């Protein structure tokens, strides 16, 4: 394996470490005593003491951090104070909504963005390009939760094609769930697709002005052959970067969209955690979200390795 891989791996591990420190510091150090914070000012001292014991607050902060991290490594995310069940169980029950939603949205946005990007770049400067780019400007400006509300208004309330929220559960079949996730995924995908299409377009325009594109044209490839064989893969490098960066926006968007459509996902869980001052849930779920962003960016870095031979070091 190349040194590129190991240097990325090192960055991945360090990022996770520092991210966990930040989260731990925010949740367990800043409030002073998490137990009394969770119970509120009116709590009886005895209950606070009991909770303190339950949360393991009687040991040092260092030990607490160590236990939290090692616990998470083996899948122990602690026990939710309000639900009285392990956080991992709560997460597992909801991840079946959130992950399919995120994947569906990425799929949709790529499916919309790439063709628009290519079409606009190959019509660079003319009316077709101009109008498509106008639409993407609009797409970027639309708040996704508002777009979700409009979709509900049109497709659920007036047309009654889709239900306004909720999912039936995966045991009820694949397509019925897919249908239930379509509106939320579409709402999530629209702004992402608009950004991606613009990036795709400008990356392609950039590669179209490169010498190797001219060389390809001079050796007899038609415009679209040259785009397909030479420009596209080169333009993909900046597009990959953006897909990686977008993932963190997607996570944020998904948390909000789940609220619009009453989807029982990770986003709902985290808000319930905040409302009920269940710091255990908030701490672990935030760590999980940050973890997923870091992992996705690591995977994007690995995808470069596949696309770009310059990163592969030969022995």
């Amino acid at each position, binding site marked *: 394996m190349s040194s590129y891989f190991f240097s990325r791996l090192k960055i991945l591990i360090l990022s996770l470490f520092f991210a966990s420190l930040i989260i731990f510091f925010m949740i367990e150090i800043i409030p002073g005593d998490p137990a009394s914070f969770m119970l509120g000012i009116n709590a009886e001292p005895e209950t606070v003491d009991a909770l303190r014991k339950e949360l393991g607050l009687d040991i040092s902060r260092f030990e607490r951090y160590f236990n939290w991290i090692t616990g998470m490594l083996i899948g122990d995310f602690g026990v939710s104070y309000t639900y009285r069940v392990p956080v991992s169980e709560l997460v597992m029950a909801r991840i079946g909504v959130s992950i399919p939603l995120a994947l569906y949205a990425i799929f949709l946005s790529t499916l919309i963005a790439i063709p628009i990007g290519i079409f606009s770049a190959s019509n660079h400067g003319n009316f077709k390009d101009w109008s498509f780019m106008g639409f993407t400007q609009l797409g970027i400006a639309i708040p996704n939760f508002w777009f979700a509300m409009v979709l509900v208004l049109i497709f659920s309330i007036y047309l009654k094609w889709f239900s306004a929220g909720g999912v039936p559960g995966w045991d009820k079949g694949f397509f019925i769930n897919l249908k239930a996730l379509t509106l939320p995924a579409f709402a999530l995908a629209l702004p992402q697709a608009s950004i991606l299409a613009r990036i795709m377009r400008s990356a392609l325009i950039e590669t179209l002005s490169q010498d190797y*594109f001219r060389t390809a044209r001079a050796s007899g490839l038609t415009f679209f052959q040259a785009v397909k064989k030479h420009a596209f893969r080169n333009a993909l490098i900046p597009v990959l970067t953006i897909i990686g960066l977008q993932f963190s926006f997607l996570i944020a968007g998904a948390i909000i969209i789940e609220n619009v459509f009453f989807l029982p996902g990770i986003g709902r869980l985290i*808000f319930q955690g*905040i409302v009920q001052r269940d710091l255990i849930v908030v701490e672990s779920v935030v760590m999980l979200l940050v973890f997923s962003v870091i992992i996705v960016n690591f995977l994007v870095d690995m995808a470069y390795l596949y696309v770009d031979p310059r990163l592969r070091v030969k022995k």
Partner: protein
Amino acid sequence: MKFPISFILGFLLSLFFLVITIISFFWVPYDVETLNIANRLMEPSFENLLGTDHFGRDIFSMIMIGGQTSLSVALIAVGLGLFFGVPLGLISASWRGSLLDDIIMRANDLIFAFPSLVIAILITAVFGPSAFNAILAIGIFNIPVFARVTRGAAISIWTLDFISSARIAGKGSFRISLEHILPNILNLLIVQGSIQFSLGILAEAGLSYVGLGVQPPTPSWGRMLADSQTMISFAPNLALFPGITIILAVLGLNLLGDGTRDLVDPRLKDKIK
């Protein structure tokens, strides 16, 4: 000088929202703190330009006042990003390849893993929701954005010969950064600033919508949308108008940013077809 259409359009839209927000500090058509249930859910009319809400408040007046929150939160967040991000980027670029550069860039990457919403969730979980919370969450996320843009642009300028000339003239990196680098990347920062401003408006709306930002009774565009959600089936106007307001404000700022870029960097890339 010929201005691009996007610049003119963006400038006018941005100016419009700026003006109505400033006016709202001194005057609004109707007081939004008094409820008038008799007039609730009115259709748009000459008296109530955009109609009234479920408490009979004038929606246009609320949008004007809501602009105060949305614009100021986004503006302060951009300011935070500029204030910390630009110096960090300049330092990183002038010490390129050093340990300090490495630490700054890795710290930036780390913050990128915390979307504004996640930062807001963390802060809210501990301190409770507020407008300050929104500013902090959006502003922190802006820091690495500006640091990266600054560093990237500054590095490409550091390689130019006029920087070597300045060094030979005995100028240190601090002086060079201020005298030669910063003026040459200012355009780029203005463009990025307008884009972050628009993203800030979107993020503030999102945070207020889920209740992590501005708290009632302070009006904000995001809060108006949150209030309207349960009534969307019988009063869609309540959701439509604040939504369109956000779209137009964001669109205006984005067009302004794009237009400025076209204006200051008129390289027309002709391609072979």
